């Protein structure tokens, strides 16, 4: 009987140990992966483009581009059915973020160098008001200073709002 009892105890111990070991292995793999391949996107060159990250509302990747040295005020080629009607235009990241209602990315751009007084950005508040992006408009008003253009165009293309404000 002692042999039977000890074998039963081993079975019961195994039922406890198996999930414990599997969990420990999983945590160890995660820890080793962190060391070998850091999980942060910012530690390596971000994939895609700043335009893609703004379109996808991926604020961390968008920040990675700015952190990597991309000028937050430099115009970038934008081609989007929703905001440019499929035409390719040059727009600033801030104007694109406003047109796409990306509130977090607007906050990030304002935090890291986007300036209201530059010609490529100065219409951002008008654009936000035109598309009724109230949260974005409030943020621009609150954080952007007094550089925004307040003389907004009377008529705008509702189907491609960004076109009204870029060359």
């Amino acid at each position: 009987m002692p042999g039977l009892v000890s074998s039963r105890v081993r079975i019961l111990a195994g039922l406890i140990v198996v999930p414990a070991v599997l969990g420990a292995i999983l945590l160890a793999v995660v820890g080793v992966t962190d060391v070998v391949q850091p999980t942060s996107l910012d530690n390596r060159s971000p994939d895609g483009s700043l335009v893609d990250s703004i379109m996808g509302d991926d604020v961390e990747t968008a920040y990675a581009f700015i952190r990597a040295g991309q000028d937050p005020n430099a115009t970038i080629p934008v081609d989007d059915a929703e905001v440019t009607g499929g035409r390719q235009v040059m727009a600033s990241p801030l104007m694109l973020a406003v047109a796409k209602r990306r509130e977090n990315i607007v906050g990030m751009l304002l935090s890291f160098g986007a300036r209201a007084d530059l010609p490529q950005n100065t219409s951002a508040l008008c654009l936000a008001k035109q598309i009724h992006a109230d949260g974005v408009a409030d943020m621009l008003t609150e954080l952007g200073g007094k550089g925004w253009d307040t003389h907004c165009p009377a008529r705008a293309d509702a189907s491609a709002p960004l076109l009204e404000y870029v060359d």
Partner: protein
Amino acid sequence: MAVVFYALAAYFAVRTLALQAANTNRTRMVAAGLLLFVVAAGWQLRAIGTVEYVRTIASKNRREWIVDLRKERTESGAVPHYVQILESMAPQGLDPSAPRPVRYPHWLQMWFGDI
């Protein structure tokens, strides 16, 4: 600190349960075995979920630093001492080595609950 004593108490409790179950009939032993397995698996899930929760919080905190830095600077502009503390903490808050949530399979994430 209490965790050590909690672990010791849990060890002796589970050990006693296992020894008693080993000395009973087969049905009770199987039931006890299943119970111990479920408890052990649940405990591990909790441990993994705790780590994942901390990683998620770290990621959210960093996102807030990225998005709200200008807002914090603007709103606290009248308190120079606060701004000084904010600026000294910014590099740490924006540190790209901050952990991110692990991309576990969806079915596994569901077991972690709302984190």
